[in-house]
């Protein structure tokens, strides 16, 4: 399935939304591996634990939390990789004959101050 072994770094230092994100790992039964179950937004570790407990306390015996921006991530299929692949496939041509960026909206962010 994975055709290439080369993994690229996945950026993870800008995932606060806007509060800091904490990766959550839980274990239900003895002998199970810790399982990654997503992330919670929280200002501190204890707040993250409180938050994760409300979501997973009914299920988990163990809850581990790790700041999302402290996790080094490498993947063969991050968004950047697939964007690169598509760019290679397209060879600079997006296949459309029509211009996709309309001149008036290309500068829409300039109209930001209503």
């Amino acid at each position: 399935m994975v055709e290439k072994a080369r993994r690229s770094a996945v950026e993870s230092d800008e995932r606060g939304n806007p509060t800091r994100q904490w990766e959550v790992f839980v274990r239900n039964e003895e002998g199970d591996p810790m399982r990654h179950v997503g992330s919670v937004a929280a200002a501190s570790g204890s707040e993250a634990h409180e938050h994760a407990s409300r979501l997973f306390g009914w299920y988990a015996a163990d809850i581990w939390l790790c700041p999302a921006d402290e996790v080094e991530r490498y993947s063969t299929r991050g968004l950047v990789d697939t964007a690169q692949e598509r760019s290679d496939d397209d060879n600079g041509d997006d296949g459309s004959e029509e211009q996709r960026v309309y001149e008036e909206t290309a500068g829409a962010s300039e109209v930001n101050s209503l």
Partner: protein
Amino acid sequence: MISISKLLCDLDAEGDGLRYDAADDSEKPQITEEKQQRPVVVWNATRRCNLYCSHCYAGAETEAATGEFTTAEAKSFLDQLADFGAPVILFSGGEPLVRDDLVELVSYAADRGLRPVLSSNGTLITRETAAALRDAGLQYAGISVDGLPERNDRFRGEEGAFDAAVRGIEHCLEVGLKTGLRYTITEANAPDLEGVVDLLVEKGLDRFCFYHLDYGGRGAEIVDADLSPQAKREAIEQVADLTLAYHDRGEEIETLLVGNYADAAFLVEYARETFGEAKARAVYEHLERNGGDPTGERIADVDYQGNVHPTQFWQGYSLGNVRDRPFGEIWDDELNPLLEALRNREEHLRGKCADCQYQSVCRGGSRLRALAETGDLFAPDPQCYLHEDEVRGEGGPVVGGAAD
């Protein structure tokens, strides 16, 4: 999403084409059975917004956020959704129109077979923008207005926002883009509801979506501004009355409710009182097929940094990030006990929801509101406004066989 007009007026609404609970859009039947089981995906394309609304679930800011997708990353993300078979992508924000590449991304989504729809505050939609979005393949624009001018502008933190939104709506209608209103009902703006509908019908609008306040983002800070359950019931009754009044006059407006599935039960009761048992049964059966609250099943959200959420309102918890692994993989991972529980919530619901006779059309309402208010994921939705006898029933089937 619950269509009052469909249920009560048997309107052959265009909205029937897509499944009921989908995003704010409408089209002729064209989505396959398989695709209907995939979620509508709300994408907060940017955190940036030109307004600062007091109830914003996304906590949008006037400044750009770090970590937003580049155009290339956004296209890869849209590829993920297309590969997964998501039927609809709802471009949301922040205000999606502040992204320079919105038209390009809408076009890319359409090319990939995703049905692009838009949620916007409308204030940046010029006639040219509306035409460009239409030409790019946009199928629907939902524009937010939250009260008559004075109240709306206070809510939205910008004088003139109401007039600018109405101009945006007019531009969409002028270029033939299907357009609807989004109105989040709170204690402050409930009195304006009817006036806003009247005003916008005059402008040619015929689709009105009423949102209940959910307790995420800045919405969580204004829980106190939410209507009381009783006032909420009255507001929904008002929308139902208003829908019937318009239809009686031959003006077939489409009215929809989002975000509180007590509305489903209420409409069965309303149909029974207004039209009788046979109608109540038809309404109930339709709602049962619809499936109740869609959180974690028929609706998904991806924020501007790639975090996947069970609904757009549940920004505090993420199932995973599409930068780490593809959306479909995250969404299908039922080894996540929370996701599994949301999809089998009947086994977990407590209190009055556990035994409610309307459970199959509501499914416990908002788990996020229950969590925010009680700390218990499976407690009853604090904004359930059903009367005790409606919840309990009287021993018989929820809808009887009067027509037999």
